[in-house]
């Protein structure tokens, strides 16, 4: 099936679309900004990857506001959490433990896990925490809902810093293809 799909397409499982539309319903009148990140965010940027959850990045205030808005879905309590990621960073050819810290909670919509990270930061080994994860989003309409998504170049920079060369290569390919389109446009 994969061979029959054009590389220009964005493909995400339809149940994610349905979950995101329900999420939008709850967050429509909220002022805080939030954006989709993680594998889903990359898929929405055209990377051929199958997400296993919805990852949202926002501010601490945003996380609290979202927590309040999705009470119906019985979210776990919000708390500051530091978690060691399953994949290490590769710095100077040396693997280093990698940590993510955020005001975190998770919940489910129709079986789809939603993870919310407020003021997300990363830390390698026992070095200091990096800057808060901030960016200017790109926009994707999930059906008729305008949705912020972490830009691919932001993820690319992150992966470069973490030494995740396989992911860098994958994202570079998508970005290059897009640039090729743009080049044709202004030929």
């Amino acid at each position, binding site marked *: *099936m994969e061979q*029959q*799909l*054009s*590389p*220009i*397409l*964005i*493909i*995400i*499982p*339809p149940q*994610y*679309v*349905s979950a995101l539309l329900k999420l939008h319903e709850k967050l429509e009148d909220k002022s805080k900004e939030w954006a989709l990140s993680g594998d889903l965010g990359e898929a*929405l940027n*055209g990377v051929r990857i199958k997400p296993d959850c919805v990852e949202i990045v926002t501010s601490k205030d945003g996380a609290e506001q979202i927590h309040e808005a999705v009470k119906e879905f019985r979210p776990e309590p919000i708390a500051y959490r530091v978690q060691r990621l399953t994949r290490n960073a590769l710095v100077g050819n040396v693997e280093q433990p990698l940590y993510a810290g955020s005001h975190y909670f998770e919940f489910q919509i129709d079986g789809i896990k939603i993870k919310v990270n407020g003021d997300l930061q990363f830390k390698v080994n026992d070095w200091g925490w990096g800057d808060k994860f901030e960016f200017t989003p*790109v*926009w*994707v*309409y*999930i*059906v*008729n809902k*305008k949705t912020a998504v972490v830009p691919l170049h932001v993820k690319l920079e992150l992966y470069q810093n973490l030494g995740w060369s396989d992911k860098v290569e994958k994202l570079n390919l998508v970005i290059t*293809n*897009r640039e090729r*389109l*743009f080049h*044709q*446009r202004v*030929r």
Partner: protein
Amino acid sequence: MSQIINHPSVDVVVLGMGVVGGTVAVELSKAGYKVVGLERGPHWEFATDFFYTKFDEWGIGFMRKFDISLAITSSTLRNNSSQFALPIRRNTIGYSGQIISEGWGVGGMAQHYGGVMGRYGPWVYQVYSDTASKYGLGFLNAAVPHQDIIDWPMTYDDYTPYYEQWEKMWGVCGTNEGPLLSGFDNYSYPLPPAPTTPVGTAFKNATEALGYSPFPGPHALATQSFVNPYGVGVQECIYEGWCAGPCNYTCEVGAKANSDFRTIPAALGTGNFELRINSYIFRLDTDSSGNIIAARYYDEQGNVNVQPGTVFFNGLWGFNIVKLMMNSGVGNNYDPVSSTGSLGRGIAMGVPPPVRTATGILDNIGGNSYTCGSGYGGAYAIRDLCDDNFDHTGLNFIGGAYPEAGFYPGGGPNNFAFFADQPTPAMIGSTFKASLKNVFLPTKTLVALAPSGVSPPVTDWYIDLDPHYTDQYGDPLPRLTIDWTMNEVNCANYLAPKCADILTKMGASNVQVSPEITTPVSHNPAWQAHMRGGARIGSDSATSVFNKWQQCWTSQNLFAAGEICKPMGDNTTAGTHPIGPMSYVAAEGIKNYLKTPGPLV
């Protein structure tokens, strides 16, 4: 040596992988049914096959290398039943020549269409009853002698939820369609419209000043990155403009919607759908009750393949729905002498070529248009002059027109289409473009408003099988007997001066209206792609082929949707939009039939 290949039976066999076939395929495969999709052409990979060849203006625009070869199949055409019909032998540009936009490959016709959208108004769905009740049957018969108009079996209100479902899937861009069309109180098209062009703004301001109600012309070129409910998404339009005009290249970023970019990937993702390309369908096998038991098709090697199934969906392009049914002995063929029978009956022009045009020149308007009237976003439109949105008392026609202006210009042969009936190699390339630029840029924009009118079905127009010409496999071609009536001529005569008024209000100079026409104009060679009827849906099996669920009256496990199933020509520019809802109705009907086989009405 060719052989017969028998395939195992499936729940649903979808014939044609275009706009409607894709919708039915994904809806049924998502519901868990085993579906096979048959497509006579290839599965283009536009990021590779097309991407590197897309600027082949001559090859694509005029040699139509992405269209079906007319050596494989075509149609024949005559203006009345005493003439000898001649086959369409050449695909040419649309404005003054013949054009045949048959789909060729996955995506179907929508590879080539302009992406112009716009719902039909309530009047189109009930032309017969509305006109008869408001103006009297005598008015209708006088305006359209020999009229053979039937109402659609469902009203606009019935179709509204299906419209919404389809628009959200297809990614229709716009806001609403103004105060003259209901259904938009708490609803807007899912994507915002393209930025308005300077000409569109001028049209908006002028029509507002004249008391009309302009709205952004809806279109299906995604203005934003978009993911539909099936989880299929595309990047936003890059405003290249090659999708526009007579070339109508397929969009290499997928922004211009077709089934290959909206539905078929989702169907493939279900695991219940098998796509078979290069499959030329030529026959439906029936049992003694008239139900379909198998579809036969030639594969690339010339083998005859037999695909049995429980339900068959005929989503072929245009006349090929009729051709396949007639060649298979399915349905009751229309007899123009006695005006009985339904298959082949009621053909009409969807958007008749304009018989009169108002033109003007806008000076110093800005923008980058060589001409205005092609390209499919950035425009404004009005409904005030279409359907029965103005009083027809004392007039001698039904329907009206849908003036729309400010489309983005195209980038290829689109530009010189306006100047060339028979373009020559001298009219392409940088020299020609430079000459156009010198003439039209940056200060002048030609604006054309063309009131195309309604071309309603009459008893004299029909499709039958041509007794002389065949396709490459020996099956008779569909023969069209069709011409214009005075209805569209009278309509154009009435509305062209109003279009000129709009142009004047826009500030155009040198406003001209083509001369008034007093006699019918020959259809040939201006036959074009937007045809309606021939296998129309309806409430009466005597005059229609399919019922409201798009189910065949005589073969209950055969469903269909498409332009040719529409009972009525329209007066908007957007023929593709209303077949979307029809495909969802058909999908629902098929699901119902699979649960409880039998007639659905």
